[in-house]
């Protein structure tokens, strides 16, 4: 009989820190160590954490700009083309030319906002890879403390810099009170 193995591949390490200051300074060190696939979870937003983690500006805003511009131009084209070019519609004796524009503004405004909002929602889901039913980190009881009083850092095993021994040593040297290896789902 073959020896049965139930060990799954590792998802990565999670490390618990005592407070916001500790995790903030730890994040700076991890950033400087060159890690790319890692994250910090805290019960509340920590000011300046994005800089400490070395996060670049999200490209969501570009997506929203594109969404808004699409919406605005679509509304302008749809109204102008149909009401002025294709079938000039005279309302209250007002001219059907460039000076009809004010009548189109409410729809332009609304559609700009609508498509911007869609771009926010859609872009966010794509960037965050949502929706998903479960996440390997949720298996850890330690990790769940992040929504209560825990300051948790997670480093994924996918990161090229990841090493079972050295990463653990690094986290412990940074003052983590509790380092835990989390298994992947599969």
């Amino acid at each position, binding site marked *: 009989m073959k020896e049965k193995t139930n060990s799954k591949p590792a998802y990565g390490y999670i490390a618990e820190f005592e407070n916001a200051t500790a995790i903030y300074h730890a994040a700076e060190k991890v950033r400087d160590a060159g890690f790319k696939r890692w994250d910090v979870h805290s019960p509340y937003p920590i*000011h*300046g954490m994005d*800089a*400490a983690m070395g996060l670049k500006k999200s490209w969501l805003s570009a997506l929203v*700009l594109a969404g808004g511009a699409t919406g605005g131009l679509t509304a302008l084209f749809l109204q102008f083309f149909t009401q002025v070019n294709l079938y000039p519609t005279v309302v*209250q004796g007002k001219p059907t030319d460039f000076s009809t524009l*004010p*009548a189109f*503004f409410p729809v332009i405004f609304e559609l700009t906002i609508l498509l911007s909002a869609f771009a926010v929602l859609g872009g966010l889901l794509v960037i965050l890879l949502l929706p998903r039913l479960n996440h390997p980190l949720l298996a850890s009881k330690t990790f769940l403390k992040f929504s209560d009083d825990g300051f948790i850092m997670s480093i994924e095993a996918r990161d090229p810099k990841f090493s079972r021994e050295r990463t653990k040593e690094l986290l412990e040297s940074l003052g983590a009170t509790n380092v835990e290896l989390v298994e992947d789902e599969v």
Partner: protein
Amino acid sequence: MSALKSADDFPKDGEALNQSKTGLLKMAFLFVGVAALLLFAILAMTGGGEDGEVSRRSMMAYSWLFAVMFFLTLAVGGIFWTLVHNATNSGWGVLVRRLMENLGSVTPWILLLGLPLVLSSDFKNALWEWIPEQAALVEGGEKYAEAHLESEKAKRAKELQTAKTDFKTLEKVTASAITKAGKNKGEVSFLNERLSHSKTKLAELEEGQLDDKALTSELQVHFMRHGDGEHVHGNPLLYHKSGYLNISSWTLRYILYVLGLGGVIYTLRKWSVAQDKSGDPKYTLMMRRWSCGFIAIFGICWTFLVVDWLMVLDYTWFSTMWGVYLFAGSAVSSMALLVAILTYLRSTGHFKDTITMEHYHLMGKLMHSFVIFWAYIAFSQYFLIWYANITEETKFYLLRNTDFFNSYTVILLVIGHFFIPFAALLVRQVKKTPKLMVAIAAWLLLMQIADIYWIIIPERGVSLTGGAQMIIPGAIWFDLLAFIAVGGIFGFLLLRSFGKSSLYPSQDPRLEESLNVVN
């Protein structure tokens, strides 16, 4: 992130204005302002003009209103930002709050610069047609009443006499007719009704037998509404508005604006400065609590002020969004001025370790949001009037859309007051770069000048020439002179107020929050 800044590291008495670096500018402002003011006053006093031509003084009335109104919007914006900062319990802007308070504290002085508009009857008559028209109606009404009093009285007495005789006859006739009608109920009730109807009419006529005073005022009202029936037309519109638009209550309201707006900012600034000395947190609580109520005073005063001074430039026109429209422009341009002042003070060595780019970012965000708010209000007002297409309402835009200069100002405002600053302020990095922020602020101030100019000046040509001319050539130089005069005094008063206390509330409990603000 560098270590958090502690309020204890900064001097307890705050930072004083460096007089040696800013004193020269202050005196230059004063000198230029007073010189321009004197020149303006001399030109206005000697510009009476002859009958039948447009006098220089009446042209200069519009210039003065324009200059006072523009700087008033800036100063009043200072009150608004102080109120909002206190009422929303904000901590981010403690460092710049004193700038807002100082800007607001100029308001009563600028309102006092508007005193010629209230006192000089030539100025008033040139600007606001309702004042001379109403005065003429009142005067005409008095003459009409005097001339017609006796004849009207005699007419009414005679009418009553006739009615009395007629009624007696009718009573007799009715009595005999009722006896004749006997059991015919319908007939009897008809006769009784006819009699009581006559009685009511008689009572009405008796009520109409007024004493001289009451009859005089009734005749005056009749004259105002209908004229004398021969040569003079009445003005029912002006009569109906006269409950609000009359010279005594208009003047009283001006006094209330000075007291209301001045009182609000005086109180808040006094408490804020008192806290610099004692460090007592009770002032913070007082400012927060009272600001919520003061907002109402501010809103009412400002709304009625712009109705009284700007909307009634044509008293037949009205817009319910007028107050908000002027307020929106005031908020955005005063925030722009605050950014400019802050950068000027930094360039002269103030706020060295205190103000960071985060403050610029926050002020930029407020500027951005109020650029959008202005556009929203301006477009809504235009859109509703454009769509409804009612003559009394559209006349405002018709006038301001006719003639080369006016119509291009409209396009400038749409693009320059909204699209350009909106796009520029979208980028985060722009809001964190003082040089770019000052450029945008200067641009927005320029747009506010254009906006106020576009509101007031198109009235000048049509009002003074009776519609013969849209623009009076050469009058623009008076506008410039008035602008320099009020602007110089405004700049002097502003710099003077900075010298009176610390540049920021040094003992505010939330100073530390503002020092370390991150957004």
